[in-house]
């Protein structure tokens, strides 16, 4: 699946997007964030406080407990500040 990062999540991870294949025991957005945080220093920094990070699956906002099965595109970003 494709991961997208925006704003300071993107800056901390150091890239705007990447393709990943999460392990089969990662079922939810929260689980995916925990798994990502273990992938290295930059990820640990980006996901150090998962409570403040928002997520979207296939361009729709979702909660941390949302299942990731079947997702093509998952995005992580800080709370939005448009308007």
């Amino acid at each position, binding site marked *: 699946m494709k991961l*997208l990062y*925006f*704003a*300071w999540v993107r800056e901390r991870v150091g890239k705007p997007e990447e393709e990943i294949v999460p392990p089969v025991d990662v079922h939810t957005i929260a689980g995916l964030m925990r798994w990502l945080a273990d992938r290295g220093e930059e990820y640990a920094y980006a996901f150090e406080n998962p409570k403040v990070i928002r997520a*979207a699956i296939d*361009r*729709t*906002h979702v909660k941390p407990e949302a299942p990731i099965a079947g997702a093509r595109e998952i*995005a992580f*970003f*800080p*709370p*939005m*500040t*448009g*308007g």
Partner: protein
Amino acid sequence: MTATIRLQREAFDAAAEVALLTGERSDIGAVVTFTGICRGDENGEPIAALTLEHYPGMVEAEIGRHVAEAEARWPLLGVTVIHRHGRIAPGENIVLVVTASSHRHPAFEAAEFLMDYLKTRAPFWKQVERSGEPRWVDAKSVDDAAAERWRTRPGAAAE
């Protein structure tokens, strides 16, 4: 209902958008516009510019969902939402919402509803340029509260 949603780098012309929306129609009795403008300061400190990052594709989808919800809640005759991205200098416009209805209350409420949701749900992130290094703007809990109140509020208002 006529609905226009646009994401662009360039500044917009609010008057031209209103003219497009109202056109030759004679059923529109009320038009409300909201224009958001880049202020010269953020939390009391002067800024050089804002840069707006966005999530292409999701922005349009998310705004579209809220426009559809506004349409379902209020008897609207037209809606236009334009949001800029990229670098924006103080005094320049950032966002435009235009709502048209037969009567004033639906137009006012739908415009305020759309702005409250744009602030908290549309995937945009503002970065402030000061003399020093750029800084991401923090989301405000009052914006979440403003969006939240529409969940418990009745749809169409008195006339």
